[in-house]
């Protein structure tokens, strides 16, 4: 960074070097994972309006979902409900800010409101108040109206939570409506499934009939690329979420797998043996046309674009023996090796382009029973921190669109399942339980 040329400065520099590297790690983690100081947020249960029979069940779903979305956002310190005043407000008239802004609650922000069902529609009003600014407390006031179903109650909660997160989280949208795509074998063979970001609404998408792997959703969310095994080869296939079936996509000779989208939706990178019989990285248009070879590694797989610039691709290569992570420019030039030991696979680039998450077995050898953990690397400084610790095999990290969460597969519960975690290692949550589930991919928005 700075050039130090004076003698006494050089001495100081040496003495301070060691503690500084730790400080540096915290700096880039802060920025790379969009962390700021947590905001104390109070979210009393929304109150019912009216006396419709559906009020209670929908209210319950709504309140649970809202709390869970805000708790998992990664930017709030949720004030426990046991501290709340007995009377919680359902409209601004009922809001007494000093009860909320002072101890014991001591919240910086309060979200409150009401929900009522009438004539088959559920009507929700929600406010976000700045508890420390009684003169101008209102930050947000929103109203939602949908058909009265539990799914819609959940949807409204997601929307309201996202609105709050967007306002208070430095302009980064919340992820409550994002989806995760993954491989599951619970239908008999491996197919591609999808679910909400919190594990709800799991459903099967592809009906390929044979092994389907490596789902990757397009940036606009309309199409899902995956690699499917056919009678004689692996091919990149395209599933249309609008149509509910696969659509035409060019076949290539050889075996083609591990597709990846550029964040502008214009290009797809993938691994193919079409040229040499060994796996190399290719790039093509989103329609599959114009496939060009980028790498010559003889064992190159798992490409992923830098979503911020689309000017770089990270991938895995076994060219030196055990697999390692490499980065190159999107035209194939300027190849750099990022890891230098162990068994490193599954790179995932953070949305702001600053970090690479990957799965790594640092000491890998024949007798050593595999234990791979997820690590985060700051690309600029090459510094690495370990994200998972508790053993087992952890693989296929994928970043959330807000850059604060990571979803990955782990066998720590006994079978392969999909888990999510905040990028600081907290809020570890199991998302799937049935069958064996792997290779999760978080949507772009």
């Amino acid at each position, binding site marked *: 960074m700075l050039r130090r040329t004076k*003698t006494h400065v050089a001495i100081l520099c040496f003495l301070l070097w060691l503690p500084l590297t730790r400080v540096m790690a915290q700096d880039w983690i802060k920025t790379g994972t969009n962390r*700021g100081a947590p905001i104390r947020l109070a979210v009393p249960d929304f109150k019912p309006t009216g006396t419709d029979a559906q009020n209670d069940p929908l209210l319950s779903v709504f309140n649970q979902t809202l709390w869970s979305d805000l708790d998992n956002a990664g930017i709030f310190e949720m004030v426990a409900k046991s501290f709340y005043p007995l009377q919680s407000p359902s409209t601004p008239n009922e809001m007494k800010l000093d009860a909320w802004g002072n101890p014991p609650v001591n919240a910086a922000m309060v979200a409150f409101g009401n929900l009522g069902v009438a004539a088959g529609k559920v009507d929700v009003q929600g406010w976000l108040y700045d508890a*420390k*600014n009684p003169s101008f407390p209102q930050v947000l006031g929103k109203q939602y109206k949908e058909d009265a179903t539990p799914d819609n109650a959940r949807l409204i909660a997601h929307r309201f939570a996202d609105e709050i997160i967007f*306002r208070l989280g430095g302009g980064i949208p919340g992820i409550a409506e994002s989806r995760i795509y993954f491989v599951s074998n619970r239908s008999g063979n491996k197919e591609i499934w999808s679910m909400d970001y919190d594990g709800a609404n799991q459903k099967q998408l592809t009906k390929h009939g044979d092994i389907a792997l490596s789902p990757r959703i397009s940036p606009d969310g309309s199409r899902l690329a995956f690699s499917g095994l056919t009678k004689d080869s692996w091919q990149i296939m395209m599933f249309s979420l609008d149509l509910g079936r696969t659509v035409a996509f060019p076949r290539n000779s050889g075996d083609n797998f591990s597709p990846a989208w550029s964040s502008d939706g214009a290009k797809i990178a993938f691994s193919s043996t079409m040229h040499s019989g060994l796996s190399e990285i290719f790039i093509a248009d989103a329609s599959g046309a114009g496939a060009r070879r980028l790498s010559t590694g003889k064992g190159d797989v798992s490409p992923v674009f830098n979503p911020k610039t689309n000017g770089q691709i990270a991938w895995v290569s076994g060219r030196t023996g055990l697999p390692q992570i490499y980065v190159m420019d999107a035209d194939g030039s300027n190849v750099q090796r990022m890891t230098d030991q162990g068994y490193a696979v599954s790179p995932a680039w953070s949305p702001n382009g600053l970090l690479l998450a990957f799965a790594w077995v640092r000491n890998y050898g024949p007798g050593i029973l595999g234990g791979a953990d997820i690590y985060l690397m700051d690309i600029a400084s090459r510094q690495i921190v370990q994200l998972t610790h*508790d053993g087992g095999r952890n693989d296929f990290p994928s970043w959330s669109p807000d850059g604060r969460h990571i979803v990955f597969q782990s066998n720590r519960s006994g079978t392969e399942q999909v888990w999510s975690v905040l990028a600081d290692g907290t809020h570890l949550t199991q998302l799937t339980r049935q069958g064996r589930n792997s290779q999760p991919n978080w949507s772009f928005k």
Partner: protein
Amino acid sequence: MAYVRANLFYEREQWRKPLLLSVGFHGLLVLAIVGLGYVMQPRATSNWGMKEGEAVSAELVNSASIPLPHPEETKSIVATENKGVTQTLPQPKPVETEDGISIKGKVTPPKHIDKPVPPAHVTPHPLPTPVDTAVPYGEGGPVSGPYGSFSTASAKGGFSFQNADFGSRFSWYVQNVNRVVSAHWYQVEVDPRVTNAKRVYLTFDIDRSGKPSNIQFEQRSDIPSLDLSAMRALQRIDTFGPLPPDYRGDKVSVEFWFDFHK
């Protein structure tokens, strides 16, 4: 005379060799130390995650605001009901005072280049406040002056928005700007020799979409590394989040200052 001159020459020559030797030795010493520092720099990972719980350490991240009493309704542009929200470690917080303008932070961006506020302008009524930055988040009061602030272990920063009403009306947005800048500021970029620095002022605009632009130095601190780290913090930021919908303007201008004290 010739003899005297010869003496002078002789004197000078005497200096040269030992001087060269000294410089050479010091140079080698520098190289050795820097080399050692480089070699011994730990490359490997540091453990982060569950073992450390909330790993983002409070000492680096700002405190969103400082405890403030509830401000009374004020129509005055100065909004001095609020104490100056910034504090430096040795200096107690200034209390409400009629000459509120002199509280750190500004209502209008100063046009003059010389220091608008003398650094030792501790206002005469100290109020008991937590001395260091261990203010629990969210316990700070509203920034209902036109300014916000943040502080880290060794630096304090403050904002004032050109439109004084903005801060009182949308204090949550000001705090938001706080958090984003603090999260993007790399303390390590500042020369570790620095213990005290003259305040550095920057200005920038935030457009409706939240994008910062027009980042400029209004007044430098004379410490290049501090100036640069402040500028870089702002340059790293893509967005602060859209301006509040109730705000009518196209943009807000923000004056942002840094105090660095170790």
